């Protein structure tokens, strides 16, 4: 007999639900209640490409130590979906707990003997209290939250406070929810003892906020001064454009005139979206689109135009599982190469690689400065994991002294004074020419923008030397970009080492947890978190100073590793890919297991099997 798991503020609860049953808000309330007790949580929505009826999961990692990556493994399953019962039960760690609706008896074969089964007759409680079908369904969710609170030591008053905030001003609804909450709590109190997994009030959250990356990026676009947004709905990016819309309505409506200091268009497709962005960028407005991999594929012709005609644009690519339609509701980092070299001909585009919603906010704002400064498309590469899950991050900050950098724009006064204007003339040696906004001067500064080859004064030319000069200048501009994009973040091991790890994006939290575990095992790894492409000189230094570097990514083909090899001469023999690409967020367990095995092939794997979550 396996002993029941016992843990305080360090365990994983997974909810298995049916999509569309109203469980999402109840589950999210459970997570927030733990947070309000001062205990950090990391949550992951695992949902299908479906509106109603298919299985959906919600995972809550309770982690006083503040590990915000997915852990892997489930200590307690709240099995509310008969469709997925067998696999849900199978996923529970030995010694774990199964919470289920015991109204209908289940045969013994449906359980496991190495777990603790907690049956609460939710349907029976509901049916006794409610007659309307929808009420029975919705309140059942609140009842299980009440029951779980009682089992896991979550303070009921905290949940009551959350309900009161959610339904502020609707007293009847608040009371009804309180009643349902208490039904669950009281049934457990009367019939069961608390479990071995417990939440205990702590002070480990501080003033951190709980926010989705898409929401943070949408807000970052507001702070970055974006005025034009053209987009086409696609999972998992839709909520970014929607967040921008709602923050604009809150923050960008002129108080006097009531008019909008922004324009948002839901376009007919991704091609029109990026076309509008490029039209607006050409005309001097800060503009962006939000999309995912399939959208980037459609946009590539325009991205090439932006590169060659040098027009600022910002694209948020919230990556999902590819290729083709792929796994629309699963996470990956598989668009790196597609974005970096999008479009035909020789093209390269800067990419920002935020780690969490905090960086989604700052990088979103910065992307507009970079796009204006570099006069090209700048990608901000989110992914579904950070984009559509609430993550715990430091409160968002804004430097009040900061001003938009509109880049090299020649003004009416400069043109009037007779300053020489060549649209594609490299006057400063940084590869970046001056541009003018259309309509600036009656007789000077006008030019014809085109995707065809042209000379420094924007006149059509297919002469070989003129073409070569121009595309070489674009390479100089790309070199300049290296000095402007966010630098990588280096975390040195506690002792000098020639072994390292490179990682980026949403792998961050899992990697940080893994680094702690490596140190505990006496393994020393310097870690470099890359935050942008093109790679700056710090990346070259890291490549040069390590004999073996594990490159941890969430894609099949080691795309960042390929970029390191192609762009910075990274040695393929020294760059070891560590790849996780099943569509679930990467875990510290996976990273530690994979790297440990490679670092020391003679050392036997740990006695405890490493379990990856099934979904």
């Amino acid at each position, binding site marked *: 007999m396996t002993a029941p798991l016992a843990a305080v503020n360090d365990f994983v609860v997974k909810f298995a639900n049916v999509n569309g049953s109203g469980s999402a808000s109840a589950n999210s309330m459970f997570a927030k209640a733990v947070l309000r007790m001062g205990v950090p949580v990391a949550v992951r929505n695992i949902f299908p490409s479906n509106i109603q009826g298919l299985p959906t999961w919600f995972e809550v990692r309770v982690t006083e130590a503040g590990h915000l990556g997915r852990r892997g493994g489930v200590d307690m399953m709240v099995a509310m979906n008969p469709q997925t019962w067998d696999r849900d039960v199978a996923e529970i760690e030995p010694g774990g707990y199964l919470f289920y609706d015991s109204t209908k008896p289940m045969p013994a074969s449906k359980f496991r003997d190495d777990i603790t089964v907690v049956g609460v007759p939710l349907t029976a409680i509901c049916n006794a209290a409610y007659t309307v079908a929808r009420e029975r369904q919705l309140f059942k969710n609140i009842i299980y939250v009440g029951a779980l609170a009682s089992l896991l030591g979550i303070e009921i008053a905290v949940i009551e406070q959350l309900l009161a905030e959610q339904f502020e001003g609707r007293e009847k609804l608040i009371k009804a929810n309180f009643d349902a909450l208490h039904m669950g709590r009281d049934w457990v109190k009367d019939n069961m003892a608390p479990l071995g997994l417990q939440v205990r009030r702590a002070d480990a959250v501080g003033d951190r906020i709980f926010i989705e990356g898409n929401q943070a990026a949408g807000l970052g676009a507001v702070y970055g001064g974006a005025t034009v947004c053209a987009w086409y709905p696609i999972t998992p990016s839709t909520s970014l454009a929607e967040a921008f819309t709602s923050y604009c309505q809150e923050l960008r409506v*002129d108080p006097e005139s009531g008019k909008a200091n922004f324009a948002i268009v839901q376009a007919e497709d991704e091609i*029109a979206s990026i076309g509008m962005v490029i039209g607006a960028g050409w005309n*001097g407005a800060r503009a962006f689109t939000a999309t995912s991999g399939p959208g980037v594929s459609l946009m590539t012709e325009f991205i090439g135009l932006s590169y060659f005609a040098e027009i600022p644009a910002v694209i948020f690519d919230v990556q999902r599982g590819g290729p083709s339609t792929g796994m629309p509701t699963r996470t990956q980092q598989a668009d790196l190469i597609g974005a970096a070299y999008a479009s035909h001909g020789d093209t390269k585009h800067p990419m920002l690689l935020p780690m969490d919603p905090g960086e989604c906010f700052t990088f979103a704002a910065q992307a507009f400065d970079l796009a204006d400064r570099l006069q090209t498309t700048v990608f901000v590469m989110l992914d579904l994991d950070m984009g559509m899950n609430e993550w715990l991050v430091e409160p968002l900050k804004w430097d009040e002294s900061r001003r938009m950098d509109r880049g090299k724009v020649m003004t009416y006064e400069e043109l009037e004074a007779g300053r020489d204007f060549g649209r594609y003339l490299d006057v400063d040696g940084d590869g970046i020419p001056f541009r003018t906004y259309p309509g600036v001067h009656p007789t000077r500064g006008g030019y014809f923008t085109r995707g065809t080859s042209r000379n420094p004064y924007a006149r059509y030319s297919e002469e070989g030397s003129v073409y070569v000069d121009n595309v070489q200048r674009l390479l100089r501009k790309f070199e300049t970009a290296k000095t402007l994009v966010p630098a990588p973040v280096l975390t040195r091991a506690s002792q000098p080492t020639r072994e390292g790890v490179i990682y980026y994006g949403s792998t961050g939290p899992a990697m940080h947890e893994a680094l702690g575990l490596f140190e505990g095992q006496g393994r020393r790894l310097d870690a470099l978190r890359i935050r942008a492409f093109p790679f700056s000189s710090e990346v070259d230094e890291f490549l040069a100073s390590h004999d073996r570097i594990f490159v941890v990514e969430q894609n099949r083909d080691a795309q960042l590793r390929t970029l390191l090899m192609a762009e910075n001469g990274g040695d393929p023999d020294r760059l070891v890919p560590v790849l996780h690409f099943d569509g679930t967020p990467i875990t510290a367990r996976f990273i530690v297991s994979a790297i440990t095995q490679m670092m020391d092939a003679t050392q036997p794997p740990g006695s405890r099997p490493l379990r990856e979550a099934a979904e």
Partner: protein
Amino acid sequence: MTYIAKPKLHHPALTPNGLGYLRRDYEGSVSTLCAGCGHDSISAAIIQAAYELDLPPHRVAKLSGIGCSSKTPDYFLGNSHGFNTVHGRMPSVTTGANLANRELIYLGVSGDGDSASIGLGQFAHAIRRGVNMTYIVENNGVYGLTKGQFSATSDRGSKSKKGVVNHDAAIDMVGLALQLGATFVARSFSGDKAQLVPLIKAALRHPGPAFIDTLSPCVQFNNHAGSTKSYDYVREHNEAVNRLDVIADRKPIEVDYEPGTTISVTQHDGSVLALHKLSDHYDPTDRIAAMAYLGERQAAGEIVTGLLYVDPEPGDLHGALGTTDRPLNSLSDAELVPGQAALDRINAGLR
């Protein structure tokens, strides 16, 4: 070659317009199209229209897609910013440009390949969104730059230069524009400058989506017997419903037609469109009747030209979005960036 500047030789008798500009100030580079191309006549009509309207040349933004027609913005309004975008996508780029700065005048030039085939979707959506622009399709029924393939506006049964008969139905851009909500719809002919110039003037003054389908014969690939887009064919089958005079603000209306044969439409900006009716009972403010009439005449083998429909009080995309009256590209940090206090409030709501 387009990079060769035109000689700056002015005829001493040239007269400046109301802004002091000569007609020459509205010209562009030397055209690289074939001698006799209908598109060059349209460029000349655009130059004439802009000159007569006293438009500040630099306040026009001219955009195009890809193809012979889309090269032409280089050949007029040389002081304006121009943008030769990608194939079939001029409408979206113009939409974005218009959103960025509502104060410029937007002129989109496209062809039948650009707008009826690859760009049909963008044409449709820009029109239905009500982008305030003049949208000219230089319609020759053929792919000129790739040497003579049928385009989607080629009539069923018309014959290519190589003798191939087109078996696909033609897309009627005018019919689509009417259906999709264009508030100014005209059809004209590159060979009829007297009709075309006033139509372009009226369209440029129209504060909404204005569409002009301009038949513009391709002398090289679609000007032979059996073509329905040749000079001869269009001349023979052209049925003009009206003649137009555009009277800008505060200028006296001179009507030299018989009483009862002219109707006036005052546009939102005060310009007056004086329409001399050539066809009895044709009312260009009645969209449904226009659609019926066009269908009827088309069935009879005629090409109806003129101002086919105008809504004197159109709305536009900015109106629908409620955007500020000022150009979005001119807004300052103070107007766009909310600051830390707002962020503190947002942070507080996320705990």
